Structure formats: structure tokens, C-alpha cells
């Protein structure tokens, strides 16, 4: 992968602060290529892991390496230290026993980006999906991808080889936002197609009937899949900060509605909050991880959610 020219580290290892810089969507938005975004996001994420309560993600010993300040002491090989008086850290190799499927919504509504956001919802979803793919491949998990709108548009089966990452990223990069959001048929179809139990990661604005969406998620759960839902919304969708009389045009249907936004803003926010609460509650009941995000949310929150989920699976 080629690093872009604008401040992207290429050779030397970045500092923790510099690495975490790449978790900010506003910064990532300046990167053109998805693979670069994925790499930098993940590196930034991993660079900060030593300060997090997360305890690692590998279980099989691979090799020793010299202890570096900041490494957890629990990884220090005490036996070697006792025998040879050398500080070596144990490194592990992950078992390849997780199949992940990244489901990215490519409907028209995902193309929305407000003035306050750096990324559209789709761009955010793509970046996050790419980072997850990068992270998963790095852990030798099998990763697949599905781009869908009203129907499945492009599907890449899950594989764990490193070369598969390019395929996945290519899949994630393809397509423009169009069409209406029809989550339920897609989820049901995919649930039927994936035979082996794994992890399903849905990245969508969920602008469909909640009952249908939840039915699709329930299907995955029925097939004993673990599911993470990244509910991605734009800040303006959440806060609805419009003041002047406006004609709103639906990105999916083209329908128009003229109204005084500031008059209905309060009720709108109530409705939206209720809608998100409905998803959150239903997902909790179905033991689905529901992660509400807006396109300004740093990526590490989503990545951390993934790792926590993975930890429960292993």
C-alpha cells in the first residue's frame, strides 16, 4: 500500500499521539485510499491499546522479542528472565477460528453528509469496515464483505489469507449510494447463505422499518451468529439544527417536504431518540451488540466494540 503524501507515516513507527490521530474521522477523511485509511486507523488503534484495559487478542505463542518500555509486564517471559537475565516479551499467534462478515449499507441515504461532518455515512462505514477488515486479517480471522442496498450488490466470501484483504477492500470501495434501504431481505438472504457460525458486522443507518431490521438480525441470531450493529448517523440527522424554512428532499425517494424545521425540531429529536432507543432495546434483548455512531465518532470506539465482542467469542 502506498502512503499518501500529506503527512502519512511511511517508514518509521509513529508515536502514540500521531497514531491515534488517525482515529479521527476528520483526519481520515483527508486520505483518499481506503487501504491506507484502514492501515492507519488500525495502527492508531493498536498504538493506544497498551493504555487500554484490553488484554490482547492472541492465544498461541509465536516468538520472543525484546521488552520495550510500555509493554505489559504480564507478557514478560519470567522464566527466560530467570535463566538468562534477559527481558523478553512473548508474542502469540491468533488461532483462525472466527469468520466475520462486513455488511455495508449502500442505500441512497448513506450518501448523506452534512456540512458539519467530514465523511458521509457511507464513507464512514467504508472506512470503519476497512479498518475492521484490516484488523481481522491481521489476526488471521476470515473476513467477508457484502455491499447492499435494496438487494445485495456485491459479495465477497470470507477468507483469512492476507491477500484477501485487497479483495475485501475493493469490494468495500465499489458502488455509489443509491436506492432505498431494504435491510430485511438482505439480512435474511445472507443468514441463509452463511452456513458456518461467525461474526456479522452490520454498518448501516438502519433507515428501514425497525421490525423488519430486527427480524433480519434475529435470523442471524437464530443461526447462532454473533452480530454487531454499527448504527451510523450524521450529526445533522441527530440534532436537526435547521432554522430557516426549508424544503427537504428525500435522498432515497426524491420526495419533498417544506416545513419550518425549528418548529418541529424538538419533536423530531424526540422521535429519533425513541427510534434509536427502540433499536438499542431490541438488540439488547436479542443479545446483539448495538453501537450508535455518528460520523464524527472516532473509529476506536467501533474497533473496541469489535474486539470486546471477539474476546467473548474466543
Amino acid at each position, binding site marked *: 500500500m502506498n502512503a499518501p503524501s500529506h503527512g502519512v507515516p511511511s517508514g518509521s513507527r509513529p508515536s502514540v499521539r500521531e497514531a491515534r490521530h488517525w482515529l479521527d474521522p476528520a483526519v481520515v477523511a483527508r486520505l483518499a485510499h481506503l487501504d491506507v485509511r484502514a492501515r492507519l486507523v488500525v495502527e492508531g488503534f493498536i498504538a493506544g491499546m497498551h493504555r487500554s484495559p484490553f488484554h490482547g487478542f492472541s492465544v498461541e505463542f509465536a516468538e520472543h522479542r525484546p521488552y520495550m518500555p510500555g509493554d505489559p509486564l504480564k507478557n514478560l517471559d519470567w522464566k527466560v528472565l530467570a535463566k538468562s537475565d534477559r527481558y523478553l516479551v512473548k508474542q502469540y499467534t491468533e488461532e483462525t477460528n472466527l469468520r466475520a462478515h462486513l455488511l455495508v449499507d449502500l442505500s*441512497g*441515504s*448513506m450518501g*448523506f453528509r452534512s*456540512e458539519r461532518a467530514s465523511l458521509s*455515512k457511507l464513507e464512514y462505514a467504508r472506512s470503519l469496515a476497512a479498518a475492521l477488515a484490516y484488523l481481522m486479517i491481521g489476526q488471521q480471522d476470515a473476513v467477508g464483505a457484502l455491499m447492499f442496498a435494496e438487494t445485495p450488490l456485491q459479495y465477497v466470501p470470507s477468507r483469512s489469507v492476507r491477500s484477501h484483504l485487497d479483495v475485501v477492500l475493493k469490494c468495500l470501495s465499489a458502488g455509489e449510494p443509491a436506492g432505498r434501504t431494504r435491510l430485511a431481505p438482505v439480512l435474511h438472504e445472507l443468514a441463509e447463505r452463511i452456513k458456518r457460525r461467525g461474526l456479522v458486522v452490520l454498518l448501516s*443507518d438502519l*433507515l428501514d422499518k425497525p421490525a423488519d431490521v430486527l427480524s433480519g438480525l434475529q435470523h442471524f441470531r437464530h443461526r447462532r451468529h454473533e452480530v454487531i450493529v454499527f448504527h451510523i448517523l*450524521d450529526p445533522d*440527522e441527530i*440534532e436537526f*439544527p*435547521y*432554522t*430557516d*424554512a*426549508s*424544503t*427537504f*428532499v*428525500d*435522498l*432515497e*425517494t426524491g*420526495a419533498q*417536504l*417544506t*416545513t*419550518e424545521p*425549528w*418548529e*418541529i*425540531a*424538538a*419533536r*423530531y*429529536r424526540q*422521535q*429519533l431518540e425513541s*427510534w434509536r432507543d427502540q433499536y438499542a432495546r431490541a438488540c439488547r434483548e436479542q443479545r446483539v451488540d448495538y453501537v450508535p455512531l455518528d460520523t464524527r465518532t472516532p473509529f476506536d470506539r467501533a474497533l473496541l466494540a469489535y474486539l470486546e465482542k471477539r474476546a467473548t467469542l474466543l
Partner: protein
Amino acid sequence: MNFLNPLFLFGLGAAAIPVLIHLFTRRKPREVRFPSLDFISEVNQSEIRRLRLKQLLLLLLRTLAVALLAMAMARPSLQGGSRGGSAASTLVALVDVSGSMGAPDAEGRPLTATARRVVESLLATLGPADELLLVPYDRTPRPLSETPIADAVRLRAASQTLTPSAAATDHATALSVAARALTGSRALNRELFWVSDFQRTGFVGAPATSGSELDVPPGPWGTSRVYLVPLTPRSRANAALTNATLAPAADLGTAPALEVGAVSYDATSGSTAQDFALEARELASGAGDAAPGANGATGAASPNLSLGRGFVSLASRGEGRALLPLSRLPEAGGEVLLPDDALALDNRRVFTSGRSGTLRVILREDGTSSPLRLALDAGSPASGLTVRALDAAQLAAGVGDADLVVIGDVERLGPAELQAVLDFHRAGGGLLLVPGGRADLMAWNELLGTLKTATMAAEDSAPAGAAWRLLRAVAGHAILDGFPARPGEPLTQARFTRVPVVRAAAGSRVLLRYDERHAALVEGDRVLLLATPLDAARSDFAISGAFLPLVHQAARVLARGTAAPSLYPGDTWSAPASATWRIEDEAGREVALSVETGRGAARAVSAPLDRTGLYRAFADGRLRTSFAVNPDPREGDLAPLPEASLISAFPNGRARLVRVGDDLAARIRQARFGRELWPEFVIAALLLLVAESVIARWGMAGLAGTPRKTG
């Protein structure tokens, strides 16, 4: 509701501004691409009706607020009104300047001084198109002009001359003048300002209790506003002298004495009688009978002119009499004094004495004294009458010096004497004609016909055992003061068995009668015919108690116009114009005289006598007579009419009280234009704007703290 600045009502057009802004400044909605309209349309469906209602409400509030502000600038007011902003007002200011208004107020100044201030305040409220009729009044209204005027300078100058007179109060007459002035006004605002102490005795037939109604003269009271400005004296405890006359025995060799009458109006607390000191003093006679002017009589009594001291006992409210012994009989007249109290005016009473102080009565009579002469002469000179009995030969020469000629026997007068009597009458002299029982009807009818008084016929006799009584025929005549007041009542218990048939001529009136056919006392033009037989064969009237006072009062009224021993302030004095008269008051100031002719005679009539005291009248340069002018004792009763009675005398809501110290101008403005409502309108407009802000903000409450996107 009216508007004092109606031009500002054009500002109501500004109320359309919010509507115009709403209609013409609506910006085209900008297009916003949004992920999904599901939530927006769902919320909009439920909110759109409320939003439209709210927008209409906001528009209404804004329009109303602007309209109210425009109306506030037009100065809305309740009642009254001034279409065009300068409608004329006609004001009548009745200002009581009667004697009681000389009582000091709480600050020690006369009430008229306070009245002046009130009038000045009133003048300050006059607009350029307003007019005012200033009517000072006591017993007589004296309007400054015939109709209301707008000459502020003249009005102000006249207001400065408001001083208390000595006269009594007649509110009703003054109110009639005000009613006429207001009736004649075509102004939009007609207002009466009545500044007075509202003395109860100034109202004829004033109600005794506050709940009773007071009759006011008819007037445009229903369309006028009446402001009552009551002035209150410092104290109403007052004692007044009501009488001071020489006792009848004064000339009979005994010590002279003065009969003094006094009345107390709440002069002391409780009912216990209290003695009030009296002092009698002689008034300097000045020039005596000498020519007037040079010597100038002065009214000031020096200490060595003291005639005596005494006391009169008065209860809290009540009358008292005292006989005050005098060290000597004053030459021209004197005065009695009471100590100072609430009203100084009535603490002095003047009396006349001496020759000049009496009325000169010529009695044409021959022979021994008749009952008529005895009656006329009784108590003289204390009675105020000096009687000279003349025979026919002396009559022509003596009649020129007489105030009154009494004739009992016309039939004995020769043509020259009769002519002298008629000349005396034509010159304004009074005649008292008393035909006896044996009167020559032809001679009498000739004289009575000439005087156009009555005709006489042969006497009638009462049936055996029956008799006529002397009955009153009219009410309220000065000659009959003190007698039973109602017409038809017998004047005396005297019986008349034979009376002449007397019929009053046209233009004469019957004051006393025996029955419808037989008149007893007929009043003609300066002529009184007393057709009462005085001999014992025909009646016992001559020895009845009514005869003497009736004859005395008839003589006084004929000679002076009143039966009272003194005149009241405001009265006029008159005398036959046969001489050149000059009248001086107590201080030597000349009183204007005019000659009035009418009904075949000419009389010199003085101007109203404004001051109390002793007046002297000179005929052809020689002191002819003197007379006293004393205040009406009723003026000393300072009790006011209850305010409730005053207010209720006018149509409901038209009369209002204004206290001294109130902001008269503000009260007038409020009543004339009503209470101004612009503060309420401004407050209402501000409240509407606040409500508008709250309602408008209410729809944005959820946005607090969040960034806004502007167009």
C-alpha cells in the same frame, strides 16, 4: 371612549405592517437534501395544524400590539371627549362671597381667599376656546358679564377682587343664574364650579337631614358636570347678635336701656348656658345736623363713648335676650359688640337713636288723641317713629318734612291740604289712610279714587251676636311679619260688629279682610287703607294686642320699605325725590343714589347698601335721617348642608366634590376627557409583545444550546 389625539389613529395603518411583512417577506425555502423524510413528515403531520394556528396567533398578537401602540399615541380616554382636540367648554364659577365667607379657615385667612385660589386654579385650566362666567354671589348674584367670556385677564382681575360681603346667602338665585348661562351655552362641555361654604341657611327649605332631597332650580344639570368645592371654616361655633333696639321706656324718664337679642350656633359645647359679654358704645354723630362731607362722621367708637356693659346668656344652640342699661341715650346711634368668635360679622349690631334715627310721621288729626295717635306714638322714639299731629292748617307746611302721612279724616281737609297730601304722595311719600267709623264716603272715595286704591261703601252690620274677625289674606308680607302666617288665619281675637264695604281697586291688593266682600287692609301704590273701625261701638280692635304692632309695621313699611328696625346688607334705601339727597355710610363714604320714576312718583333710591353700620341721609344738605344696616342673623349659622344632600340634588353622577388641595386641573381633565387610557394600552401592547415572544420562543425551546443553521 374618545381619542384626544385622533390624528394618531392613522397609525392604525401600521397594524398592517406585520401582515405585509408576513406576506411579502417570506423567503423561498432553501432546499435541503436529507437521508429520509420519514421522521420529518411524521412530526410535521402532527405539528402542522398547531404551527399554522401558532403562526396566525403570532400574526394576530403582532398586529394587535402595533394597533394598541398606535391607539395609545392617540391618547384614548373614557367618557367626555374633545372631538378635534379643542372643543369649547363653558364654565360657570359660582363663588359665594356672602358674610359667612368671611370666617377664617384653618390658616386664619377668610374663606374667600381660599375661593380666590380655587378660581385661579380654575382659570389655569381654561383653553383658548373655553369661556367662563364668574358669578360672585351673596343674596344677589353679580355675574361679571352677561354671558361667559374668554377674557382671561379680565377674569383674573375679577377673581382678585373676591372679598366677603356682609349680605346673607341665597344659593338658589345664584344657581338659577348658572343654569341660565349653561342652558344658553352650545359648548360640548358645560361645567359648573360652585365654591361655597354651602351654608344651610342659604338654601330656602333646606333639608334637615342628609338623606333628604334638596330642590335646585331647573337647569341643564343632566348634561353638565357640577364640581362642588366646599370650604370649611376653622370653627363653626358662633354667636350672633340678632337685635339691638332701644327699649321703649328709654324716653320716659327712666334710665335708657337697650334690648339685645343674640343667638348661639354651637357656640359652646353641651347645653349649659354661657354668658357672653356685651358692650354698647356710642357711634360718633359727626356733623350732627350739619352739612355732610366736611366733617366726615367716623364709625370708630372711642373708649369714652362707651354706653355700658352687660351679659347675655346663651345655650349651645338657642336664643337669648338681655336688657342692657345705657349710661345715656346716644345722640345719633350706637353699636353693641360681642367678643370675637368664628364670624366677626355678626358680633356687631348698630342701632339708631335721636331724632334722625326715627321715621317722621305726620298725623292729620284734630282734637284729643285718638287710638290711632296713641298707637303711633307708643314707645317713641325707641319705636323708631316720631309722630306729629297737625291740624288742617298746618298740614300743607308740615308735610314736606314727613316720611309718612297718616290721615284719619279726609272729610276735614280743604282743597289746599288735600292737594298738599297728593303732592306728597306723587313725590314718593307714603300714605296711611285710616277712615273712622263715621267716614264721609264721598270724600274718601274721591281720595281713594285719585290714589287708585279702593272704593268704600256704607258699612254692614254683623247679625246680632255675631262679629267679623280680621283675617290674613296674603302670605309673606313685611307688614304682617310676626302675625299668623297662613292666609285665612285670624290676626287677632278682636271682634268687628260693623265694618265698611271696601273693594280693592285694580292694581291694589288686599292684605287683611273680614270676608270676601269686606277688605280690611288694602295696599295700593305707596298707600295703605286700613279700614278697621277703632271706636268701641264697632270693634275692640283698638285695644287688642295686634293693633299697635300692625300700625307700627305698616308705618315702617310705608316709610322705609321694611318693618325691621334696620336694613340688611344689600337692601336699598329710598325716599321721596322731592329733595336733593346724599347718603353716607358710617365711614363717611358716599353711597350712590339714583332717581327712579314710576307709577306717578319719583323716588331717590340708593345703591345696594353693602356695608353694615350706621348710614346718614342728608336732604338738601341737612341731616334728614339715619338708619342702620345690620347683617342677617341667619348668616351667623355656619352649619353646612350635608354633602350627600348637595350631591344628590343633581342628576346621578353629574356632581362631584373637589376638596381644597385636590389637583383641580387633573380632576377637570379626568372628568372632561375621561381617564386617559394610554398607559393601559401601552402595557397591553407590551404584554402582547411578551406573549408573542414567549409563544414564538416556545416553538424553539428544544433548540436551546444547539448550534443553528442560518439560511
